[in-house]
C-alpha cells in the first residue's frame, strides 16, 4: 500500500533494471558530491526505505518553482514524481480538484502523521486577515498551518517561501511573510532562488530520502551542499575579475570577450547559490555566461538592494533616500565636512589675528612665540 513500497521496488516495478538502478544510484552520489563509496549506501537506502509522501502547497507565488522542478534532468521530473516520492498533493499538477483533492490532503495527514514532507511554494500574506490569498474561501495561512502541524519537515521552495521575494519587496503591501516566520515549530529547509535550480530542488529531496535525514544547513537554514559558496567563487569569468578586466557597458568589447560583469552590477560576489557550478537547465548555461549579471535572486531581500546594474547598493534600507549609495553619501559628507573644516580654519585664523591685535599676547593661544 501507499508509502510501504521502497524506491527500488517501485523502480523495478516500473521496468527499470537493477543495472539502471545502480547507475542511477551512482549518478545520485555524484550529484550530491559524494564519492563512489557511497553508492552501495544509496542503493541500500533505496531498496529498503518506503516512499515518503510530499504535500506541496502554493501561497502567493508565480509558480516558477514548480516550473523549475519539472525541468529537472537528473533525476528526471517524471521519475521523481512517479517513482521516488509520492507527490500526493500539488495543485499545479494533480488531476483532481475540490473534494477529491482535499480528501487526499486529509488522508495523508492522518495516515502519515509526522512522516510526510510539506513543501511550500510561495508565502502567506498577513494583511487583510490573510485574504490576499484565498484557498477554499479561507486564508492560505490557515491551510499552511493545518498541513504543517503534523509534517516531519518543511521545505521552503524558492525565495518566496524562504525570504518573501517580490511581493514582500518594499512596501510589501500584502505583508507577505516567509514560511519560517509563521511556522516556528518544525525543521525548515530553505531552498532559495527565483526559482531554485531544478537539480538543486530534486537534489535536496533525493538527499533527504536517500539518507533519511535533513541536509546539513547553514546559519540561514539553507542546505550547505548547494548554498555554501558564492556564485563569484566558482565563476568561469573569475580570472577576468582578478585581472581587473570588466564589461564597462553592455555589448562593448569586454562583453563580447566574456569579461567580468562586476562593474555592470553583477551580484555574483554576494550571492550564495550553485549557478556557476550546477548551472541551469541540465548545465546548459547560467546568467553570467549569457552576458547578464547575477541579480542575486537567492539572497534575502534582493529586490530592495539597488539596481541590477549598480555595483553599490541603494541605502534607503538604512535611512538614506533612494538613489544614494555609500559612496554618494560618503563623498557628500566628506565634501560637507571638508567645507566646514575650511570655513572653521578661516574663522580660526581670523579670530587669532583679531586676538593678537586686540589684547596682545597673554599666551592663551600661542605657539612657541610666547616668550
Amino acid at each position, binding site marked *: 500500500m501507499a508509502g510501504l513500497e521502497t524506491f527500488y521496488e517501485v523502480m523495478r516495478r516500473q521496468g527499470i533494471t537493477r543495472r539502471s538502478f545502480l547507475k542511477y544510484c551512482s549518478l545520485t552520489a555524484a550529484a550530491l558530491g559524494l564519492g563512489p563509496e557511497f553508492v552501495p549506501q544509496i542503493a541500500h537506502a533505496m531498496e529498503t526505505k518506503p516512499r515518503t509522501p510530499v504535500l506541496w502547497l502554493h501561497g502567493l507565488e508565480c509558480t516558477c518553482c514548480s516550473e523549475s522542478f519539472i525541468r529537472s534532468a537528473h533525476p528526471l521530473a517524471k521519475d521523481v514524481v512517479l517513482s521516488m516520492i509520492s507527490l500526493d498533493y500539488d495543485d499545479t499538477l494533480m488531476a483532481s480538484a475540490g473534494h477529491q483533492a482535499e480528501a487526499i490532503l486529509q488522508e495523508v495527514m492522518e495516515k502519515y502523521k509526522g512522516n510526510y514532507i510539506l513543501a511550500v511554494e510561495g508565502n502567506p500574506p498577513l494583511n487583510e486577515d490573510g485574504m490576499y490569498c484565498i484557498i477554499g474561501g479561507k486564508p492560505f495561512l490557515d491551510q499552511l498551518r493545518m498541513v504543517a502541524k503534523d509534517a516531519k519537515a518543511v521545505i521552503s521552495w524558492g525565495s518566496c517561501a524562504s525570504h518573501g521575494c517580490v511581493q514582500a519587496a518594499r512596501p510589501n503591501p500584502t505583508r507577505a511573510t516567509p514560511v519560517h516566520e509563521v511556522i516556528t515549530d518544525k525543521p525548515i529547509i530553505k531552498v532559495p532562488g527565483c526559482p531554485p535550480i531544478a537539480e538543486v530542488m530534486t537534489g535536496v529531496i533525493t538527499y533527504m530520502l536517500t539518507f533519511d535525514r535533513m541536509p546539513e544547513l*547553514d*546559519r*540561514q537554514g539553507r542546505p*550547505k551542499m548547494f548554498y*555554501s*559558496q*558564492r556564485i563569484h567563487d566558482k565563476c568561469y569569468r573569475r*580570472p577576468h*575579475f*582578478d*585581472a*581587473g*578586466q*570588466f564589461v*564597462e557597458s553592455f555589448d562593448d568589447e*569586454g562583453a563580447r570577450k566574456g569579461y567580468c560583469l*562586476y562593474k555592470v552590477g553583477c*551580484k555574483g*560576489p*554576494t550571492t*550564495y547559490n550553485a549557478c556557476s557550478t550546477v548551472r541551469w537547465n541540465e548545465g546548459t548555461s547560467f546568467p553570467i555566461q549569457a552576458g547578464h549579471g547575477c541579480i*542575486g535572486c537567492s*539572497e*534575502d*531581500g*534582493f529586490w530592495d*538592494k539597488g539596481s541590477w546594474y549598480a*555595483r*553599490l*547598493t541603494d*541605502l534607503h*534600507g*538604512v535611512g538614506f533616500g533612494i538613489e544614494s*549609495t*555609500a*559612496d554618494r*553619501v*560618503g*563623498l557628500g*559628507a*566628506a565634501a560637507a*565636512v*571638508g567645507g566646514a*573644516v575650511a570655513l*572653521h*580654519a578661516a*574663522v*580660526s585664523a581670523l*579670530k*587669532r589675528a583679531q*586676538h593678537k591685535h586686540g589684547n596682545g599676547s597673554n*599666551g*592663551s*593661544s*600661542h*605657539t*612657541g*612665540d*610666547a*616668550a
Partner: protein
Amino acid sequence: MTSIDPASLHTAPPALPATIDGEPVGRVSAVYVYEAPVRLWHWTNAAAISVLALTGYLIGQPLPTLSGEASQHYVMGTIRFLHFSAGYIFAVGFLFRIYWAFVGNHHARQLFILPFWSRAYWRGLFEEARWYFFLEAKPKKYVGHNPLAQFAMFWAIGVGSVFMIVTGFALYSEGAGPGSWQDHLFGWVIPLLGGSLDVHTWHRLGMWAILLFIIVHVYAAIREDIMSRQSIVSTMVSGVRTFKDDDPD
C-alpha cells in the same frame, strides 16, 4: 614641528608648577603621554587605514579595464591582497592596542573609555565644543585627549575599528568558507545585517565614517597645535606633551 621655544626652558620656573591630575602642565614641564608602542601603533594604523581606504574604494569602484589576456594581469587580485593584508595589520594592531590599554599608562586607556557617567567629562566636552564654536576665548588645558577629542576618538577609532574588523572579517569569511575560523568568529554578522551585499554596504559606510573622522582629526590636530595650550602633533612623534603657559587649567 615643535611647539615650544627651547629658550623658554632656560627661564626661571614659577615657584609652584601647575598640575592636572598630579602631572605638571607648566611651560617647562614635559609629560610623557604617548608611550612608544602607542606611537608606533598610531602611525602603523594610519598607514593601514590609508591602504585599506584606497584599496577598499577601488574594490567597490574598480579601475578601468585592462586589455589583453587575463593571465597577464592581476590588478584586482593585487588590490584585494593589499586590502586583506592591511586589514590583518589593522586588526592585529588593534588587538595589540587593546593589550596596551591594560599594560600601558593611563593615557593609553582613553581610546576605549567614554566616561559617560562623569559630569565633569560632559562639562569639559561642552566647554571644548564652545571653544570650537568660538564661544570661549581660551581653551582648557589637557594632558591627554580633550573631552571632545576623546569622544570622537572613542567612536571613530575605538568603536569604528571594532565595526570595521567585525564586518571586514565577516566578508573575508565568505571567501575563507564555512568552517574557517573567520566564519566561526564573524560569519554570524552576514545574516544579522541582512546579507552579504548589506555587509558590504555597511563596511563601505564605515570606511567613509572613518575618513570623515580623519579629515577632522588632522585638521583639529594641526589647529590645536597652533591654537591650543599644549603640543599635539609632535607629541605623537616624541610622546612628550609640552605646554605653552603656566596657568593651572
